[in-house]
């Protein structure tokens, strides 16, 4: 897998940008369909997210006066690029060729860029609603970031390496981490739900309080790119959790022909990401929005302390297990 053409192919075509674009739209369709079916509605047709994306591209772009247009255009692109590159390091068919030790930290860093982009958009568009939305986005970032990182770094501590691919390989020999660290799995799910700003935590984009939060002034292609960013970060987040906790795309036993092994691995990857998506969708449907100060209490009092307890348990297990 070191042949540069194959790597380029890997990055751009199959598990890279093209597949990610299609899979993001598919997951967004599934998310809306599950939510609709749970509310006893029919839900959108298969091509709906694709039609939304193309329509938004075709709309007129309105620049609110007094806004630096170049920066206003650049921010959605930066956010989208960050999230897409984060997906390269997550193993999709077998281990990712560009993995290096420490790519878990890079992925986590790249995942926070969209929230900062939202804050900048809100602050730049000089509209009172988007300013308040931007501030809420950043305050929410501080609340869920610590437990989310703790929950995602404990697998690295247990597996003894900071590369996602090596964690996946480690899980082949031992149990899946979801059984070893159930609390970490739950905290990671809650953190991901908050990072994607979905219903219990969609305070920045609270549709009924501040019109559309940081999204208010976005029109045309900027809106399309920001929607795509949120959908792609849904894919990246669920793939990350699938890789770290549910054993990633590798089979415990290797099948005879290589392509069958890769295909089975890819099937596992799809199954696991869809499972994570089902959990996220049911959380969205079953809960109402929290207030920012309630989120503050719950975030720091419960979720952060539970994550610390999880870290403590992992350290104890590591100490007992490693020494023979």
């Amino acid at each position: 897998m070191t042949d540069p053409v194959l790597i380029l192919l890997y990055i751009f075509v199959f598990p890279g940008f093209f597949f990610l674009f299609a899979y993001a739209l598919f997951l967004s369709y599934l998310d809306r369909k599950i939510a609709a079916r749970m509310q006893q509605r029919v839900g959108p047709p298969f091509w709906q997210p694709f039609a939304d994306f193309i329509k938004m591209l075709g709309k007129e772009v309105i620049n609110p006066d007094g806004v630096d247009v170049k920066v206003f255009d650049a921010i959605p692109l930066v956010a989208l690029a960050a999230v897409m590159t984060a997906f390269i390091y997550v193993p999709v068919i077998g281990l990712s060729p560009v993995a290096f030790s420490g790519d878990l930290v890079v992925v986590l860093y790249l995942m926070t860029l969209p929230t900062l982009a939202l804050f900048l958009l809100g602050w730049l568009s000089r509209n009172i609603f988007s300013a308040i939305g931007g501030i809420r986005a950043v305050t929410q970032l501080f609340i869920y970031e610590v437990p989310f990182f703790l929950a995602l770094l404990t697998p690295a501590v247990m597996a003894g390496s900071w590369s996602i691919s090596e964690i996946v390989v480690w899980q082949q020999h031992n149990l899946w981490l979801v059984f070893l660290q159930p609390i970490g799995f739950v905290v990671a799910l809650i953190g991901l739900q908050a990072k994607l700003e979905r219903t219990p935590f969609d305070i920045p984009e609270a549709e009924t309080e501040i019109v559309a939060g940081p999204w208010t002034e976005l029109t045309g292609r900027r809106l399309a790119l920001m929607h795509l960013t949120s959908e792609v970060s849904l894919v990246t987040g669920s793939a990350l959790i699938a890789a770290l906790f549910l054993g990633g795309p590798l089979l415990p036993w290797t099948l005879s022909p290589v392509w069958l092994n890769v295909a089975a691995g890819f099937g596992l990857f799809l199954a696991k990401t869809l499972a994570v998506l089902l959990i996220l969708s049911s959380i969205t449907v079953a809960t109402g929005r929290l207030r920012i100060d309630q989120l503050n209490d719950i975030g720091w009092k419960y979720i952060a302390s539970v994550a610390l307890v999880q870290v403590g348990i992992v350290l104890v297990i590591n100490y007992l297990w490693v020494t023979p």
Partner: protein
Amino acid sequence: MAGPGTGISQRLVNWARIKSPWITVYNSGGCNACDIEIIACLMPRFDVERFGILVKGSPRHADILIITGHVTLKQASRLRRVWEQMPEPKYVIAVGACGASGGVFHGLYHMMDCVESALPVDVYVAGCPPRPDEIINAVVTCLDLLREDASHGGKEWRQKKPVTGMAEKSPTVES
């Protein structure tokens, strides 16, 4: 590539515009009976999300502006301002008898007389209030208008005589 309306990308954009019309509802002074009928369209029984119709809060994100109720004097300028905030391929649906002629409130002192006096309307819906399926039918006729306009390159060819009172002195919204 052939004319503006026939290129592959143009046909794709037209298809996308027809498949995902986003609407925003504005109650310009009516008795909010039409409002609750529009919200009833979103509900499980008349679910419009299967046509891709979403109700968006801010006019910036919407394609179709649905106006319920007649236009009171105070609403006229704000209605006009909301309409101007919408990005270009935009359409206006005036719902109910109030939208067409002021309905029961025709001729009252604190009212302008119909939505047409504030901004150009594309589709009218009869009924006081119209049933949810009639409102969905209005959105569908609006999409047919969109398909026709796409083939003629924009709305100008269909614009009938300029709206009286509006064209000769277009309101200057002080910035």
